[in-house]
């Protein structure tokens, strides 16, 4: 493990926060009571909630220690496939915390919110330019929420055309949220398999596409990291039967400036600002999932929409065919600011370079590790590549064992056991912000682990060793759920 970032440091123990509580402490500077106490009817008043009682330093130390048990992009490489864990620029945080944005109340009238409205309008224009679509909504709060928005628009489109449909085609390489989003619209999923080259074959779509099918959900590049090169033919088949093509844009980071999904037959596409556009994942959100659509779907976009009137901007709610409202206000505005700042910092050239370098990094890893790990689809990849544990199985070592061992070397593991089409999948997405040196270090770590699989499989099966805790009993956690203290 020489020259690898993983090492043992001093890790503090820290109890659950209520175990530090001491009656009488309060970490909040309470405002002076300058008006008379107003007593609510006693029957309405409850006991004060049993929250922990701490000093300010107690709180600071608790959360500082907790944070030190976490791995983040700022700590090390996070090659998590399909998640695009690129660097989160710090200037974006500065921009989002500007008082004029952070203090803005959502119910201040349009004329007092021109800064927010202009930012949203301009961001919509940039996303249209990047994706090649006709219109964009920024309202969905996350990728899955964007998917739901897209499916609701497809649903509304068919309703408007006078005949609702009952099914939707979903390939086996789809993200797990795709079928769940479709079923919220009452669509039954029709699963199809990708062809032997890991991409969809037009004949397979043709075989199931009929006039009772609302459309198809395609991720392009797909979750094997391969470009769906038959997409245009597939779209033609679906369109010929009156269906629509939904594009999952989670993997947009591979093709900015190269392919505009709006030009290749896709009708509606969601983006993940917390992937492609560098906003932080925050340990599971808040994200943002804008949706871009072709012209014929524009009337169905959620309300309110942002429009420009000469030199001013306003919200438009009067859209008779809209799917309705998806978020209490206008979506995750604070996240939009960060993505907007990123796009302005990169420019068109920078975004294109980002995609090129993301694909370069992935292909470099694929070529460098394909003798070490089994590569089920040995084809040029896009921004990610998918290996598996077929070689290591001989020593009874699984993808999970290797993933856990990577933690000791100081790397976050890749996405494991996804996509489902590859047994024991080990899915690596380095992103463009990792340097060659860091990637070489990762490659060396994987090679060292593969060697351990041959020489010391027993040790590997017990990894990790340097983390705060070792492998956790997830079965017991689910069997006897303990969800609060």
């Amino acid at each position: 493990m020489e020259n690898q970032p993983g090492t043992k440091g001093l890790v503090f123990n820290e109890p659950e926060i209520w175990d530090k509580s001491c009656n009488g402490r309060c970490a909040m500077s309470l405002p002076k009571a300058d008006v008379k106490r107003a007593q609510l009817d006693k029957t309405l008043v409850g006991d004060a909630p049993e929250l922990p009682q701490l000093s300010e330093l107690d709180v600071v130390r608790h959360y500082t220690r907790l944070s030190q048990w976490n791995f983040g992009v700022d700590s090390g490489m996070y090659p998590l496939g399909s998640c695009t864990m690129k660097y989160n620029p710090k200037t974006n945080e500065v921009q989002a915390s500007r008082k004029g944005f952070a203090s803005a109340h959502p119910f201040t009238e349009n004329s007092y919110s021109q800064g927010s409205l202009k930012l949203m309008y301009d961001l919509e224009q940039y996303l249209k330019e990047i994706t090649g679509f006709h219109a964009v909504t920024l309202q969905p709060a996350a990728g899955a929420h964007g998917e739901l928005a897209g499916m609701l628009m497809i649903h509304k489109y068919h309703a408007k055309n006078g005949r609702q449909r009952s099914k939707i085609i979903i390939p086996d390489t789809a993200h797990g949220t795709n079928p769940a989003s479709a079923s919220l619209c009452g669509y039954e999923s029709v699963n199809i398999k990708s062809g032997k080259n890991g991409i969809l074959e037009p004949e397979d779509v043709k075989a199931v596409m009929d006039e009772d099918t609302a459309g198809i959900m395609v991720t392009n590049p797909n979750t094997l990291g391969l470009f769906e090169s038959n997409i245009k033919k597939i779209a033609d088949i679906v369109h010929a039967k009156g269906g629509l093509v939904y594009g999952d844009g989670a993997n947009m980071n591979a093709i900015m400036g190269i392919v505009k999904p709006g030009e290749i037959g896709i009708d509606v596409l969601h983006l993940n600002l917390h992937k492609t556009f560098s906003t932080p994942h925050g340990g599971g959100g808040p994200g943002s999932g804008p949706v871009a659509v072709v012209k014929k779907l524009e009337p169905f976009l959620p309300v309110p929409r942002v429009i420009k009137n000469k030199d001013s901007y306003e919200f438009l709610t009067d859209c008779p065919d809209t799917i309705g409202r998806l978020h209490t206000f206008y979506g995750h505005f604070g996240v939009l600011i960060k993505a907007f700042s990123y796009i302005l910092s990169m420019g068109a050239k920078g975004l294109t370079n980002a995609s090129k370098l993301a694909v370069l990094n992935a292909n470099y890893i694929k070529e460098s590790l394909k003798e070490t790990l089994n590569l089920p689809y040995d084809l040029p990849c896009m921004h990610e590549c998918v290996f598996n544990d077929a070689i290591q199985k001989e020593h009874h070592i699984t993808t999970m064992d290797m993933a856990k061992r990577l933690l000791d070397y100081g790397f976050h593991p890749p996405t494991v056991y996804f996509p489902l089409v590859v047994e024991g999948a080990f899915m690596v997405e380095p992103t463009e912000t990792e340097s060659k040196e860091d990637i070489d270090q990762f490659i060396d770590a994987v090679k060292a682990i593969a060697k351990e699989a041959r020489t010391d499989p027993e040790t590997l099966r017990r990894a990790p060793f340097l983390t705060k805790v070792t492998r956790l009993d997830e079965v017991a956690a689910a069997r006897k759920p303990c969800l609060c203290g």
Partner: protein
Amino acid sequence: MRYLPHTREDIESMLKVSGLSSLDDLFNCIPDDLKTKQKMDIPQALSEWELDTHMEELASLNAANKNCKYFIGAGSYDHYIPAIIPYLISRSEFMTAYTPYQPEVSQGTLQGIYEFQTMVTQLLGMDVATASHYDCGTALAEACLIALRKHRTSNKIAVSSLIHPHHRQIMQTYLGPAGYEIVEIPYTDKGVTDIKALEKMDDIAGIAVQSPNFFGNVEDLASFKTVAADKKILFITSFTEALAYGLLKNPGSFGADLVAGEGQSLGIAKSFGGPGLGLLAGSKKQMRNLPGRFVGKTLDSNSDKGYVLTLATREQHIRREKASSNICSNNGLNAMTAAIYLATTGKIGIREIAQQNHDKAFYLKTGLEKAGFKPAFNSPFFNEFVVKVPDSFKAKKESLINDKNIFAGIDLESFYPELKNHYLFCATETISKLDIDQLVKEVQ
């Protein structure tokens, strides 16, 4: 570009490994006719200081750039955010981490969210709380879906007309395509949900009531629970002002089956309405019906305590189309923010802040009445209330923003056409007695 580390030498040597000679060759697998011929029309890249200038210009186009006084709420509240909250939440180990799928290196997020779930159950008096949702409106829509899916025959849900109008719109968006119907319960002249009208409703799968309601009034949750129990259907409550439960009896004490709420008040900036924090809690019986993530406590292979994401069979990874919801990313970092806020205020602080919210709102209402505004409803309220204003107020309201940076009240007519000249006012702990006295003097 400072985010892109590759030197020309790096690129050349990396291409060589793939047997390619240019970056464009990486895209040979994409048919030419699918590649775009159109450039992206985006402004040239800005330097960091150019970006600062541009963004400050935009921010200054918002009235919020000045020191404003907010006498408005309606789902987004101006509360004091202690310095330690943005400081701690900015730690990159929290901010730049992914969803904690690898628990060995995510114990910080996991213990933090476990503590969040616990503090939410304390605040609401419920048995379990999820790891968060997008906002109250989406959480409430999901809660209604639970009630509807569980009911064998009815496809209708009774929803108070005093639930936030935007939340009702979201419910319509979520419920409509699945063939479910929303029946609105009217409100009384006391500004509360009309329980008599509800009693007469048959064939409903659940009841949803917001308290404090959109008018700020406290609802009689006990009576609604009785009706729900009689009808053997689920009782769902919601709220937009989480701090109310620092003072009021919590929904759990009234037997709520599901509670959806907005947690923005718990240390999260207004930020033009998002990201906020969706809270979703339930009774023990509802645990496996709740959508979204849970963190649970368990042991590691050394029998040391640790935390993991759990009950994942409800989610879309495993049963895919049978998942209870499609939610994947939630608002995790804002849940952590709320947890830090609740730990900071603690039992003593939350009660005092909640009481002060009520005190200020009561003082404001009294002052506005003295200035000639008429109280619209005579019901107990927390920190928001409705008054009827004279016709001249509309113009005054504009000048208060333009000249004094005061946002005074929200016009309710667009939400409730029958309530002409009715405004929803709010006062929180950030409003001083002087601020209130000034406003009252201005509107006299």
